[in-house]
């Protein structure tokens, strides 16, 4: 488990360094092209990158949670969800219990956020809580917690900041080239004596401006897809039950509702790419997530063995590629681990009950008070209502309300 994190880090560092080099090259090129000074461009690129990093580091997760309108829950609000997260926290060996959020959205999705395992949160949509049973929800949560455990959130944040900076710089520079001859004029004047060398640098810089954003994006997608496979594999390992995650993915992919609020930069943190176009399978190179049908098939062909090595074998079989997806050092050390059998859980609420339960949680989180009338109706009293009792609209009985705090 620990070797896995270490070898991941090395691989990730290589990719991040590659993206960083793109940024530096781009900065230098833009500097030469626009100001006649490569170092100046470098400094600008680094300053922009630094500022974007600061913002992402301190605000990243919070922005994501507040944009999506997520509400933090305590154990009492949704004991089952809380318990499942705690179970997976134990299985993954995380030290701190992540914060749990619910997003009111009928779409089926979930994400993890937080710069390190001590500042981590998981969020699930209310749609997910309604549609998935306990085993499936457990699979999804295991997938998300392994993003946290493998420090994917941090890695993908670094990657997306680099990507963002590169895209921003290239965009800005191209606008300046097209519209403003103010920078261009000066650079032409100062590099006039250079002849061919200056021309070549200019051409390289322009090509870089076009190529760098695309290349950075492709690296970013590649890193992200790899992380998804790894999170699926760890999810199966933690739950010892790949079928749970597989069937959750199936339900999620069958749902056509799209997530209302999603942030492009954080797409890799969702269990399923929130930006896929209606039902179409994403093309391979330009997606943050591997095709969901492939993920399901890999999980289902793991058989009774849930080790990372078994996932690796299944991956090779399904994708017919000789290149694996899990670091070799991890696979070598892992022993065979048997999957747990499916057992019917008696306590499990069915879908109707889950829907009611979820909507109750959402009412409660919006500070509504629920009162049950003798006629069987359930009254949901908005927080603005100030009386101590309320008349039931169905039967006319007067129901007293519990004392509550008014805003």
């Amino acid at each position: 488990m620990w070797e896995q994190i270490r070898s991941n880090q090395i691989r990730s560092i290589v990719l991040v360094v590659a993206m960083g080099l793109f940024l530096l090259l781009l900065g230098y090129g833009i500097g030469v092209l626009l100001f006649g000074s490569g170092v100046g461009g470098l400094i600008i690129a680094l300053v922009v990158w630094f500022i974007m990093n600061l913002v992402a580091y301190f605000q990243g997760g919070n922005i994501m949670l507040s944009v999506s309108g997520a509400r933090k829950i305590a154990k009492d609000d949704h004991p089952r969800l809380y318990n499942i997260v705690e179970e997976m926290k134990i299985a993954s060996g995380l030290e701190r219990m992540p914060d749990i959020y619910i997003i009111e959205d009928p779409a089926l999705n979930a994400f993890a956020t937080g710069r390190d395992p001590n500042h981590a949160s998981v969020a699930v949509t209310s749609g997910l809580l309604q549609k998935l049973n306990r085993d499936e929800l457990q699979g999804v949560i295991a997938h998300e917690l392994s993003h946290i455990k493998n420090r994917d959130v941090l890695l993908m944040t670094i990657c997306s900041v680099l990507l963002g900076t590169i895209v921003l710089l290239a965009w800005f520079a191209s606008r300046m080239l097209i519209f403003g001859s103010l920078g261009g004029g000066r650079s032409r004047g100062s590099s006039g004596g250079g002849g061919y060398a200056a021309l070549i640098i200019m051409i390289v810089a322009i090509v870089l401006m076009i190529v760098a954003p695309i290349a950075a994006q492709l690296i970013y997608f590649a890193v992200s897809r790899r992380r998804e496979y790894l999170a699926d594999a760890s999810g199966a390992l933690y739950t010892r039950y790949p079928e749970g995650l597989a069937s959750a993915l199936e339900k999620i992919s069958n749902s056509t509702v799209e997530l209302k609020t999603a942030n492009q930069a954080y797409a890799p943190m969702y269990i399923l790419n929130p930006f896929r176009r209606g039902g179409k399978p994403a093309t391979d190179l330009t997606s943050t997530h591997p095709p969901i049908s492939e993920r399901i098939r890999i999980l289902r062909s793991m058989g009774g063995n849930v080790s990372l090595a078994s996932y690796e074998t299944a991956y090779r079989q399904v994708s017919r590629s000789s290149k694996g997806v899990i670091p070799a050092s991890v696979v070598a050390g892992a022993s065979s681990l048997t999957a747990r059998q499916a057992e019917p859980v008696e306590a499990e609420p069915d879908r109707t009950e889950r829907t009611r339960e979820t909507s109750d949680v959402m009412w409660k989180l919006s500070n509504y008070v629920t009162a049950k009338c003798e006629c069987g109706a359930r009254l949901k009293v908005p927080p603005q209502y100030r009386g101590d009792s309320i008349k039931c609209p169905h039967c006319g009985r007067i129901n007293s309300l519990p004392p509550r705090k008014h805003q």
Partner: protein
Amino acid sequence: MQWIIIGVVVGVIVILAIILGMNYNSLVRLRNQTKNAWAQIDVQLKRRHDLIPNLVETVKGYAKYERETLEAVTQARNLAQSAVGKGVGTQAKAESDLSGALSRLLAVVENYPDLKANQNFLALQEELTSTENKISFSRQYYNDAVLGYNNKTQMFPSNIVASMFGFRGGEFFEVEVAAEREAPKVSFS
């Protein structure tokens, strides 16, 4: 010539010291990890012990004729509680007996629809199911940690360091899987 020999000797000693130090540190880390993982199991086992009296009380109100099953659960719980701190093996045995008694009780509950509709009971059952899961997940994590620690104490070169400083490896938390799997099949319907 003399200086070269002295230099080589000092160099070898320094390298050996570094290897020793690194191995020692990772042994300590792994031992702490197993201790920590064991503490996790303990927390969950204690949580289950605390839940049982409550469960027994709730079930008693509805299922008066199941005294034997209820008593078996209470007894298994008391035995498990007294086994705390008596070594991994003893505790594992007592806890798996308790698991068996509990699943027999939950199977019996199937015959009492009123009880199954009781909000209090449903909440308790969710807690119990989840605690059972947490126990098995923490056991899973503990066993992984013990495996890593034992490998380190048995493999070269860390086994030399381990025997020098008395790292003895840990004991797996095994349960008789057969007994645990069989139990839910007992049904009176």
